[in-house]
C-alpha cells in the first residue's frame, strides 16, 4: 500500500504541468534509482548468456567468452524431462484462476459495498480494513493447518483458494467505484427498468475498467511471485509454481551430492520475469489512470 501512495505522489510531482522547473537533486536521485533498478536486470540478462563454466570464470557484469543463451534456454526447457514447462503451466493456472478469481470477487464485493446501503456495512468496512493490515505471510501457517485438516494440502486448490481473497483489491474497487460510478446513473438505469445485474455488467463494469485492471495487475503480480504459500503447501514438484521450482534448482548446488545448475537457474529466472514484464508494460496505462482516479474533482 505504501508503494502505491508513494508512487502516486511521485507521479504527481514529476508530471505536474505547473511546475516544469528541473531539479538537479531529483534528477540525480532518479538516475541513481534507475541504475539501482536496472543493474540486477542487466546482470540477469548478461549472465543468462553464459555457460556454467564461464559463469564461474568470467566477470559478473559483462559478457563472457561464449554466448550460450540459446543452449541455456534449450537446457532449461528440457532439464529433468521439461519440468520447467510444467512449472510454467502451473504458474499460469494459479495466476489465471487465482488472480482472475480474486479480481472478480474484489470487483463484485467492492462495487456492492460502494453502491448499496445495507445493515452491517460499517462492520464489513472495518473487517476489510483490518484484513489489509495482516500480511499474507503471517496467515500462511494457520492456512496450512486448516487446509491439512481439510485434506487439501499438496493440491492446486491449496494455492488457488487463498489467492482468491484480495482485501486490498476490494478496498481499491470500493474507493474507485465511489467516484467512478455516479449514483445518478444507476438511478437512471433503474428507472429504465434495468435489473441490478444488467446495470452492473453493461454500465458499471465499463466505468470500473481502469480500477479492475489495476486490481488484476496487483493480484497477478502477487500470485506470480507467490513463494511462501506454495513452499509450505506443496511437496510434489509437479505442482510447483516457478518460484518454488527455481529455488529447488538453486538448492541443488548445496551439500553432499551437489549438482549446481546455476546457468539454468539464471536463465529460468529470466524466462520467468518476461511474461510479467510484458504484462506490466501492456497494462500500465490503465494502471496510471486507475491511480489518478479521484485525484481531481469532476
Amino acid at each position: 500500500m505504501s508503494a502505491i501512495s508513494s508512487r502516486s505522489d511521485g507521479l504527481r510531482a514529476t508530471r505536474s504541468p505547473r511546475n516544469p522547473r528541473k531539479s538537479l537533486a531529483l534528477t540525480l536521485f532518479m538516475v541513481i534509482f534507475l541504475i539501482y533498478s536496472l543493474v540486477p536486470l542487466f546482470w540477469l540478462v548478461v549472465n543468462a548468456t553464459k555457460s556454467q563454466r564461464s559463469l564461474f570464470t568470467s566477470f559478473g557484469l559483462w559478457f563472457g567468452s561464449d554466448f550460450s543463451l540459446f543452449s541455456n534456454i534449450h537446457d532449461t526447457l528440457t532439464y529433468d524431462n521439461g519440468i520447467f514447462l510444467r512449472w510454467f503451466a502451473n504458474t499460469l493456472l494459479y495466476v489465471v484462476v487465482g488472480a482472475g478469481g480474486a479480481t472478480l470477487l474484489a470487483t463484485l464485493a467492492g462495487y456492492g459495498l460502494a453502491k448499496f446501503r445495507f445493515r452491517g456495512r460499517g462492520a464489513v468496512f472495518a473487517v476489510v480494513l483490518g484484513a489489509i493490515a495482516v500480511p499474507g505471510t503471517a496467515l500462511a501457517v494457520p492456512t496450512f493447518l486448516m487446509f491439512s485438516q481439510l485434506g487439501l494440502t499438496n493440491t492446486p486448490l491449496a494455492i488457488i483458494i487463498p489467492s482468491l481473497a484480495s482485501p486490498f483489491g476490494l478496498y481499491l474497487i470500493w474507493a474507485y467505484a465511489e467516484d467512478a460510478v455516479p449514483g445518478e446513473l444507476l438511478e437512471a438505469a433503474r428507472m429504465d427498468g434495468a435489473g441490478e445485474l444488467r446495470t452492473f455488467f453493461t454500465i458499471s463494469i465499463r466505468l470500473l475498467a481502469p480500477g479492475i485492471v489495476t486490481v488484476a495487475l496487483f493480484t497477478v503480480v502477487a500470485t506470480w511471485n507467490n513463494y511462501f504459500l506454495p513452499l509450505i503447501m506443496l511437496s510434489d514438484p509437479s505442482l510447483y509454481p516457478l518460484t518454488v521450482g527455481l529455488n529447488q534448482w538453486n538448492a541443488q548446488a548445496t551439500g553432499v551430492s551437489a549438482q549446481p545448475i546455476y546457468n539454468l537457474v539464471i536463465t529460468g529466472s529470466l524466462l520467468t520475469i518476461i511474461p510479467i514484464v510484458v504484462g506490466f508494460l501492456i497494462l500500465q496505462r490503465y494502471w496510471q489512470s486507475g491511480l489518478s482516479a479521484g485525484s481531481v474533482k469532476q
Partner: protein
Amino acid sequence: MKIHLPSTVIRRFAVVIAGSLLLGAALAGCSSGSAPGSAGTDVDAALKAGGTITYWSWTPQAKAQVAAFEKKYPKVTVKLVNAGTGNDEYTKLQNAVKAGSGGPDVAQVEYFAIPQFALAKSLLDLKPYGFDSLESDFTASTWSHVAMDGAIYGLPQDSGPMALFYNKKVFDQYGLDVPATWDAYIADAKKLHAADPTKYIAADTGDAGFTTSMIWQAGGTPFTTTGSKVSVNLQDAGSKKWADTWSQLVENKLLSTTPGWSDEWYKGLGNGSIATLITGAWMPGVLESSVKDASGDWRVAPMPTYDGTAATAENGGGGQVVLKQSKNPALAAGFLRWLNADKDSVKLFLASGGFPSTTADIDSDAFKAQTPAYFGGQKINEVLSAAAGDVVKGWTYLPYQVYGNSIYGDTVGQSYSSSSDLNPGLRSWQKQLVSYGNDQGFSVSG
C-alpha cells in the same frame, strides 16, 4: 505489492514453523502415525507381495536406484519425489507428520536431523523388521546416528569422515607445507594471505554444520540428550578448544567471506583463491563434476589435529528412514534395506560420487586402490578410508538441531561478521538453544 524477504529469512521462518509443529507432535505423544504391528514384519514377504510406496530424496542417484529396484521386484512401484534439498524437505516432512498424512513412506534425512524426527516419534523403529542384523555392515560412526534409545530409525546411506582437501598448485606456488596440526594450518593461512591478499586458506562465513563437526573433532560434546532432558554446553573443553583456534583465523580476517555453495565459491575453488576445504569425504564427487577447471590441482590429506594424533569427525551425510504414517511399513522397510544394504544399490550410489557408509566398501582394496586423475592420480580413498576409522566417538546432535542450525547465523554468525572472538557467539547460541528447547517442552540445562 509482495514483500520480498531474503531467502534466509523465509527459510528460517519455515524452520520455525516446522519446529513449532514438532512441539505439538512431540508433546501429544504422537497421535498421528499408526502402529506397525498388525501389518506384519516380514520384509521379504512384503517385497514379494508388492505394492506402491513413495520415496522422498534429493540424491541424484535415486532415479537409477529406484529403476534397478523395480526391475528386481517387479510388483513394487516406488514413486520418487524430490521434495526439496535439506531443510526444505524437513519442513515438508514435519508438516506431513503434524497433519498425520501426506508424507512419504521412505525419506532421505541427514544425520543431524534424524534425532529431531526420531524423538518426536514420527519414525518407525526398524528393529522388529530384523534390521539389527545389519549393524555390522556399517561403520560405527554412521550406525550411531540411526540407532538411538535402543531403537533403529533408519539405515545410513553415505558418510562424511572429514579430511583436508588442498589446492596443490597454490601450495607449491607459495611454498606452503601441508599442515598436520591446526597451528601449522594457521601459519599457512597467514603466509598465503600475506603473499597474495586475494587468496585465502579457506572460505568460512559461519556454517552450523561445519562448526559442530569441528567441535566434534576437538572432542567436545556440547549436546547431550537423555529422554526429555537436554544439556547444552558450547563452552565445554572441546568447544572452547576449537573456538580459540578458529578465532585466530576469524579475528585476523584470514578467511574468505564468500558464502559456501554460491557461484562465487565454486569459482574460488577453481581459480585457487580458496586454497583448502576441510570437509567430508563426499567432496571429491562435487569437485570432479562441478569444478572441472581445477582438474589435477587438488589433493587430499588427513584433517589437521590439535596434537598430531589422528582424529576426525563426520561432516554431512545421511540416511533414509521409514515414517510411522506409512501404510505399508514392511514394504517400505524392504525398499530401505535394499536401498542401503544391497550391493547392487550401493554400487549405483557410489558410481555418482557418494562416499560409502558400508564397511565392505570402505575397506575394499579395489576402492582404496583407485587413482582418480582429478587428484593427480593420488590414492585419495586410502586417506578417506583411514579418516572413517578415526572419527571421534561420543558425538550426538540436539533433538531440535534443524531449528538450532537456523539460528546459528544470528549468534555465532555475528562473531564471524564482526571478525571477533567466536566464544561470545557460541555463548549466545547456547542461550537461545536453551530457551527454545525449554519452550518446546524439553528440560534443557546449559
